[in-house]
């Protein structure tokens, strides 16, 4: 503690440690920011940096533990759009509170949503945050890919000269980082002992307070309704962008098709129930299935999605007259095609869950993909039969 010099927010001091490069640590490598040498737009983006702390390894930016309105707005965009694909924090060492040479070091990913969750959870604590370059991906996904991994951890410990910042030799890695980290290899390479912290950042205070003990609840991953719900926009959005426009175009063209050409009036009149059914099947697969996941029978996502699809089609035919009034061939088509579409979309949700494994997904796909192909072919045949009947060929 005595060896540290804390610097309050002030132009003069910060210029010395950052822009002036008076410290022996290359600032570019240590990841230190200084708002006096950043362009105005960058300053706005980095409003969460509340100051700088001097250490033996150079200047360390201090992160605020309160999230601003713009942080929350950005998080909302992350949950719904591709905004999240470029939402990063510069890898390096950061401080929260006024950490000293005995303070804990918590490792995080450089996806800003992950980093923000951590700094918010550290309110009232004094700690260091070591941000790895996980290519803007959250801890768990990046650990699965290996970008949040042992090599990157070793690299960042060296680059930030962590051994000169703290006297102890322990770092707290989030438990969900474990797929990418080999604790024994990291210890061998750096001397730092990896302690696996709780799954959720909100439990860190309790974990540290209890002497680095995580309870069973802190160690396990559940998948409650709110977690499932928050992931659904990123299921609905891609489905609506990827499949729906093409589907709508094909359906309108088929419905408007006559031997004389494509008629817009027919396309709209006969096509609109199918535009609606398309939307309903996307919602059945991408919203209803995730939300009611534990309540649909069977463990297979394809089956859960199919059940959600059949239910939705049935209810639509009861309550939406133009769907209820479809003729027999189109009704068979409807019950065949749309539940399969919901099933396929529901299967995509395996990528968002916390409990599906690759072997299971491979098995599901082996069984379901042929069924989807057969279902699609039969659906097309049914549409042709319907059209031929409409043209009085059959």
């Amino acid at each position, binding site marked *: 503690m005595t060896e540290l010099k804390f610097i309050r927010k002030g132009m003069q001091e910060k210029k010395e440690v950052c822009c002036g490069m008076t410290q022996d640590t290359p600032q570019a490598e240590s990841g230190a920011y200084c708002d006096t040498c950043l362009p105005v737009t960058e300053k706005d983006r980095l409003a969460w940096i509340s100051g700088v702390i001097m250490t033996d390894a150079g200047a360390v930016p201090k992160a605020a533990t309160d999230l601003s309105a713009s942080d929350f707005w950005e998080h909302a965009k992350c949950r719904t759009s*591709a905004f999240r694909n470029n939402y990063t924090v510069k890898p390096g060492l950061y401080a929260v509170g006024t950490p000293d040479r005995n303070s804990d070091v918590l490792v995080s990913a450089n996806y800003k949503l992950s980093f923000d969750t951590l700094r918010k959870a550290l309110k009232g604590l004094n700690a260091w945050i070591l941000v790895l370059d996980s290519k803007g*991906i*959250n801890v768990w996904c990046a650990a699965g890919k290996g970008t949040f991994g042992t090599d990157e951890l070793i690299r960042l410990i060296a680059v930030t000269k962590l051994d000169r910042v703290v006297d102890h030799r322990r770092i707290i890695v989030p438990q969900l980082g474990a797929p990418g980290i*080999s604790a024994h290899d990291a210890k061998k390479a750096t001397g730092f002992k990896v302690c*696996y912290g709780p799954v959720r950042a909100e439990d860190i205070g309790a974990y540290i307070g209890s002497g680095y003990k995580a309870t069973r609840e802190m160690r396990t991953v559940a998948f409650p309704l709110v977690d499932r719900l928050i992931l659904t926009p990123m299921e609905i959005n891609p489905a609506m962008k990827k499949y729906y426009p093409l589907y709508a175009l094909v359906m309108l063209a088929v419905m408007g098709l006559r031997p004389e050409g494509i008629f817009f009036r027919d396309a709209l009149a006969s096509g609109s129930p199918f535009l609606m059914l398309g939307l309903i099947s996307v919602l059945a697969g991408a919203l209803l299935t995730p939300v009611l996941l534990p309540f649909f029978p069977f463990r297979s996502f394809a089956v859960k999605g199919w059940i959600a699809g059949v239910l939705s089609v049935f209810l639509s035919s009861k309550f939406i007259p133009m769907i209820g009034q479809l003729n027999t061939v189109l009704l068979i088509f409807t019950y065949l095609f749309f539940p399969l579409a919901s099933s396929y979309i529901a299967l995509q949700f395996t*990528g968002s869950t916390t*409990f599906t494994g690759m072997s299971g997904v491979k*098995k599901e796909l082996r069984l379901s993909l042929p069924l989807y192909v057969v279902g699609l072919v039969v659906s097309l045949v049914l549409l042709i039969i319907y059209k031929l009947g409409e043209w009085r060929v059959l």
Partner: protein
Amino acid sequence: MKYLSNVVSLEFSPGRCVGCGMCVEVCPHEVFALENKKAVILDKDRCMECGACVSNCAFGALNVDKGVGCAAAVINSMIRGGEPSCDCSGNNKTKDCC
């Protein structure tokens, strides 16, 4: 919630286990427990094949066919070859994926 039964590729060699408890600590689905200073598998079907236990077992007592349980990733690997990964579209940053 559990996924399909009897598909998980997790393998445990009790002979190599020294009972350090690292697998119990890192597993997010409570697949392991320590009994008589050895790890035991409580419920294999709970395993999601993330590989956390394997990479943190210093004694090589565990093995799993580690991978992402994501249909989009598996379908992509079927089309393009290679192992399923979260890189739905290579390194293209505009793609919506995890």
